[in-house]
C-alpha cells in the first residue's frame, strides 16, 4: 500500500515551493504554507516527499499524539509504555468532506457501545502533532473545518468539549494547503492566516518538462535505485535543516533590517502586523538555512513574495498580480 515517496531534492524546478517548505521545517512557527496552482505541478509530490526528507523524530511508542517523552503523553491516552522509538515526521492527509469528529477526535463509539466506556478516539489533529497536515483542495474544504484547523494550528492545542468529553492535547503541526484558485476562492481572512503563499505553475521550458518526465519515469521503473541515487542530496538538505534549526535563535537582526520589514509592509498596505512578523521569521529561517549569522536585505528580498503576496488589499485599479506588486515594492523600498 505504502509506496516509496519521490525524493524531495529530485523535484525539478519549483524552487519557491521547495524553499517555502524547507523554511517551515526550520521554523514551524511560520504558520503554514498555501500552494496555489494547476494540477500536475508536483504539489502533492513535494508534500509527500517531506516525510522522508525531514529529520526523524523520537516518540513514545504507542502514544497517539507522538509525544517526545512519557511525561508529555496526555493522561487520557493511558500510555503505559515508556520506551521511545524513532519515526518519520508524520505527514497526515486530510481528505475533503472529512467530518469534524474525524479531525478533532471524538467519543470512541466502538468502545462506548461494546464496553460501555467513555473513551476518546483521537483524530487527525493528534496524528499530525509534531508534523505536517496536508489538505489538498483547501479552497473546497468546508469553512468551519478550515477555521478549526487554523485555530488549532495557531494555538498549538486541540480542545475537545463535546459528547461529555473534555479533553485537550498538544497539536503543533504545520499546515500545508493546496488548491487551484480557479475552482473556488479562499476567504481573505483565511488567506492571511497562512504564513507563506506559493504560486506554482508547470515548468515553462521544454527541457525542464522533459527532465520531469525522465526523472519520474526513472523513479517509477525502479524506486529503490532512484532513491539511492538521490540519497546523498537528500541528506545534505536534511543536515542543513538540522543545522539551521540550531542556528535559528542566534541569528542577529539589525535594527535597519527590521525597519526595512516595516517599510515594506507599509508600502504594500498589508493589513495587520502578521505580515511583518512572518517576513521577519521567514527571513531569519532563510538566513539560518544559508548559514549566515545576520539577517540582511537579500534574505528579505528572497522571501518577500512568499510572505506578503497574499496579504495585500485588493486594488481593483491595479491590473498587475499581487506577486508583481510585491516585487515592485521590494524594488522601491530595498533599492
Amino acid at each position, binding site marked *: 500500500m505504502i509506496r516509496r515517496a519521490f525524493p524531495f531534492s529530485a523535484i525539478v524546478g519549483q524552487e519557491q515551493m521547495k524553499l517555502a517548505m524547507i523554511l517551515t521545517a526550520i521554523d514551524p512557527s511560520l504558520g503554514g504554507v498555501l500552494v496555489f496552482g494547476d494540477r500536475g505541478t508536483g504539489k502533492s509530490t513535494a508534500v509527500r516527499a517531506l516525510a522522508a526528507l525531514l529529520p526523524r523524530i523520537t516518540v513514545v511508542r504507542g502514544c497517539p499524539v507522538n509525544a517526545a517523552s512519557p511525561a508529555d503523553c496526555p493522561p487520557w491516552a493511558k500510555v503505559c509504555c515508556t520506551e521511545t522509538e524513532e519515526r518519520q515526521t508524520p505527514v497526515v492527509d486530510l481528505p475533503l468532506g472529512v467530518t469534524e469528529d474525524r479531525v478533532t477526535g471524538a467519543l470512541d463509539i466502538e468502545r462506548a457501545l461494546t464496553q460501555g466506556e467513555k473513551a476518546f478516539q483521537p483524530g487527525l489533529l493528534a496524528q499530525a502533532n509534531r508534523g505536517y497536515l496536508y489538505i489538498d483542495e483547501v479552497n473546497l474544504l468546508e469553512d468551519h473545518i478550515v477555521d478549526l484547523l487554523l485555530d488549532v494550528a495557531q494555538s498549538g492545542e486541540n480542545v475537545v468539549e463535546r459528547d461529555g468529553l473534555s479533553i485537550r492535547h498538544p497539536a503543533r503541526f504545520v499546515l500545508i494547503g493546496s488548491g487551484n484558485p480557479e475552482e473556488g476562492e479562499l476567504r481573505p481572512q483565511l488567506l492571511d492566516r497562512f504564513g507563506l503563499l506559493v504560486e506554482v505553475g508547470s515548468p515553462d521550458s521544454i527541457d525542464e518538462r*522533459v527532465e520531469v518526465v525522465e526523472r519520474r519515469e526513472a523513479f517509477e521503473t525502479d524506486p529503490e535505485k532512484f532513491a539511492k541515487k538521490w540519497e546523498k542530496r537528500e541528506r545534505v538538505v536534511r543536515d542543513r535543516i538540522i543545522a539551521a534549526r540550531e542556528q535559528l535563535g542566534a541569528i542577529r537582526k539589525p535594527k535597519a533590517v527590521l525597519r526595512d520589514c516595516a517599510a515594506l509592509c507599509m508600502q504594500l498596505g498589508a493589513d495587520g502586523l502578521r505580515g511583518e512578523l512572518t517576513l521577519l521569521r521567514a527571513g531569519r529561517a532563510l538566513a539560518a538555512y544559508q548559514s549566515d549569522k545576520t539577517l540582511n536585505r537579500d534574505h528579505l528580498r528572497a522571501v518577500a513574495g512568499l510572505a506578503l503576496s497574499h496579504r495585500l488589499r485588493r486594488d481593483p485599479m491595479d491590473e498587475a498580480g499581487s506577486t508583481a506588486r510585491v516585487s515592485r515594492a521590494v524594488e522601491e523600498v530595498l533599492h
Partner: protein
Amino acid sequence: MNGVAATDSMEHAPWDRACLALHLLCIDPIGLGGITVRARAGPAREAFTSLLDRLAMRRISLHPKTGDDLLFGGIDVARTLAAGKLAHNPGLLSQGGVVIVPMAERCSADFAARLALSQDSGMHCLILLDEGAEPEEAVPTVLSERLAFHIDLGGIAFSEAAWPGEPDLREARDRYRGVVSAPGDKRRLVELAACFGIHSLRAPMLALRVARAHAALSGRSSVEETDMRIAAELVYPHRATIAPQRDDQEQTAPPEDSEAQAENGNMDSAEIPDDLIVAAVKAMLPEHLLDSSQGKVRGVGPSGTGAGLRKTGNRRGRPLPARPGRIDGRNRIDLLATLKAAAPWQVLRGTGIARHRKVVFYPSDLRQKRFEEHSDRVLIFVVDASGSTAVTRLAEAKGAVELLLAQSYARRDQVALIGFRGTSAELLLSPTRSLVQAKRCLAAMPGGGGTPLANGLHASAELAMQERRKGLTSMVVLLTDGRTNVALNGAADRAAAYDDAMKTAAWLRGQIANGVVLDAANRPGAQLQSIAQAMGAKYIPLPRADAQQMSAAIRATGLG
C-alpha cells in the same frame, strides 16, 4: 500479431479505438490509470463493459454516494454488537482491482478526492462511466486527469460494436517491461503536449507508457513512429486546451501560453514538432476547441459537473430529532438517543451469551444526529418600467416592492432588483440585505420605453442561476402589464417578443424555486397568464390595486 492492435492507420472507428485503448490498458492497468468512457447506458456500453473481463483483475463497483466505511473499511456494526468486541470490515479499496464508477459525472468533489487519493496509492485501475448528457456534464478533472484514456461511445450502433479478437495480452505484458524508447521520444511527447496547451505533466508520462504498451502489443521491443502517433492520438485530444497555431497566428494563443513562450524564446522553434502527429491529434480534437481555440471548456470544476449543488449535509445547523442510522464515518451517532432506544429491551436481551454485558445494543438501536440548515432565499423583483406600465402603475409597483422589502428584511431574505424597459434589462440591485440601498435604488428607477419582457426574464434567470451556485434559493416576483413588444434581440416585434418571453420563461422555471406574476394591466390578458404558466409561477391579476393590496396578494402565495 492481431489485427486490432497492428492497424497502422488511425482512421479507427470509435469502437476500434475503444477496444485498442482497453487492450493497451490490459497491458499496464495500474500505470495507465484507466479509462473514462463517455456513453449513455446502452448496448455499446454494455458490450464495452463486458470486455473489461480482459483486465483479469478483481472488479469493484462503486457509486458516487458510497460511504467512507465501505470504501476504506470501518467497524462492522452488526458483528461488533453481536460479538461484544470490535470487528472491522475491510474497505472495498483496501484490495487492488478495477474500480468501476457508473454515473461518474455525478461524483462530488469529496468522492473524487478520495478516489484520486486511492488512485495515487497505485493499486487500482479506474473505469469511469460518464453518462453525462450535456456537454457541461463531465467527470471531475481531478480523476480524468489521472487516467490515460478517454473514449466516447456515443453514436455507436450495436451492430458496429463487434466483439474484437483478443490479442495475446500475456505475451504483450511480458514484453512491455523490456520495451525501450529512443531518447528523443520523451522530448517529442513533451513538446507535443505543450503545443496542445496541456499543462499537466502527467499527460506526457501517460503517453510514453501508452506508446510502450502499443509497441508491446504490436510485438515490437522498441517504440516506433506508429506507437508514438497512436499514443498521442489516444492521450492528448481530450486534454488539449488549445488547437496548435501556426507561426503567424501565434499571437492569438491564450495568454498563459504566450506568456510561457515569451519567457522561453527557443520554444517557438520547437513548438510545432512533428507535423504528422500534430495533424493526427488535431483531427481528433473535440469540436469546441477548433471552434473557439479557447481553452478549458469542459469540466473545470473540482467535482463532476453533473453533480448538482452541494447541500451542506448533516453536520451543522439546527438539530433535528435523531433517527435510526448506521456508522459510516460521515454522520454522527447520537449516543443518548441510541441508549434510549436500547434501554427498554435490556431485560429481554440480557440473557444467553450477552449475560455478562452491562448494556446490549443491536444495530437497529443506533441513532444518528441530524441537522437542518436552511439555505438563504433571494427574492428577485423583476419590475417592468416600460412606458405602458409607468404611466399608471409604476408608483404602485414601487410601493408594493418596498413593502415586500420590509418583510423580507424581517425574514433575513436577500433581495435583488431587475428593471426592464426600452430594449434591455438591467440589474439595478445585486442581492443584498440592505433595505436602505434597495429603497434608494427603487426610488431612482426611471420609466419609459418598450416592454422587453423576455430580456427581463433572461436577466433574472441568469441571476437565479448565479445565486443557486452560491447555495441560495431564488424566487421571482415579476410585475408587468404583459404588453411585451420587444424581442430578445431588441427588435420591435410583438409576435417574436411573446415567443421569446415564453421560451425564456421556460428556462427560468428550472432556475427558481417559486414565482409570482403580478399582472398590473388595467385589463388582464391571457398572454401573461400563459407566460406565468410557462415559468411555473402563480398568476395574480391586480386590476386597480394599491400597494397594500398587492403585498397582501403576494403574502397569500406564501412568498413574501
